[in-house]
């Protein structure tokens, strides 16, 4: 029984993925499938809402790493929002703020996709 799930919502042209639970080597494939689904649907403006993400290991971080370049090459991006402090610490530990837009709230993340901010 997996304790991780991905919920899909949208706001205009932005696809929001709500991550819930614990993201590790066992559950990383579910995040991968969610991002692949976005690609199939040609949704390249992706916001990750991490407010209910309780844990992430390098396997979870690796999924973001594996897809970020391709999504940017297609004119999109992955913005990461509302992380719990202990989860943010893991992103920070590996230098992810250098590579990803990590913001405090989902609203801020969606705003980053507005034409004036792009």
């Amino acid at each position: 029984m997996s304790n991780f799930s991905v919920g899909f919502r949208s706001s205009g042209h932005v696809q929001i993925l709500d991550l819930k639970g614990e993201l590790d080597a066992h559950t990383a494939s579910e995040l991968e499938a969610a991002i692949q689904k976005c690609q199939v649907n040609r949704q390249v403006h992706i916001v990750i809402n991490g407010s209910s993400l309780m844990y992430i290991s390098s396997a979870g971080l690796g999924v973001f790493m594996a897809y970020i370049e391709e999504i940017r090459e297609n004119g999109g991006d992955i913005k990461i929002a509302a992380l719990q402090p202990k989860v943010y610490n893991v992103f920070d530990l590996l230098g992810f703020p250098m590579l990803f837009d990590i913001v405090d709230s989902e609203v801020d993340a969606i705003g980053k996709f507005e034409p004036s901010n792009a």
Partner: protein
Amino acid sequence: MVVDTHTLTIPSSTSFLEEVREFVTTHATNAGFSENAVEQMKMAVDEACTNVIEHSYQGKSGQPIDISISSYPDKLMVTIRDKGLKFDREAYKEPDLLLYAKSKKSGGFGVHIMRKLMDSVEYKNAGGFNECCMTKNRS
């Protein structure tokens, strides 16, 4: 002087990682470590076990992984033991985040994370076992 030792054996499947994290959380908390230190140890042990499953056992399930946690007056020691392929320290290189993203790779950060989170990480190979021994000092 060892104060307290606890052991857990899991089969080599990522579906048991959650149980490993609960095991570490329980015993590191009982040993008096802060919530932040417990989080760090939990993640380091998760990464070590993931490496055993994916690299030592090459994804083969049902192989034993023994985890032991020993509490000392000055530190906590976690040992992860397996019977799979030897960890090749020579082949291990610190990952470069930007190069990794460009190459669209997704893995290879486990040992890097373990070394950042723990005070020491050592690998040994003896008697047909691989042993990863990590310590966290009491601050």
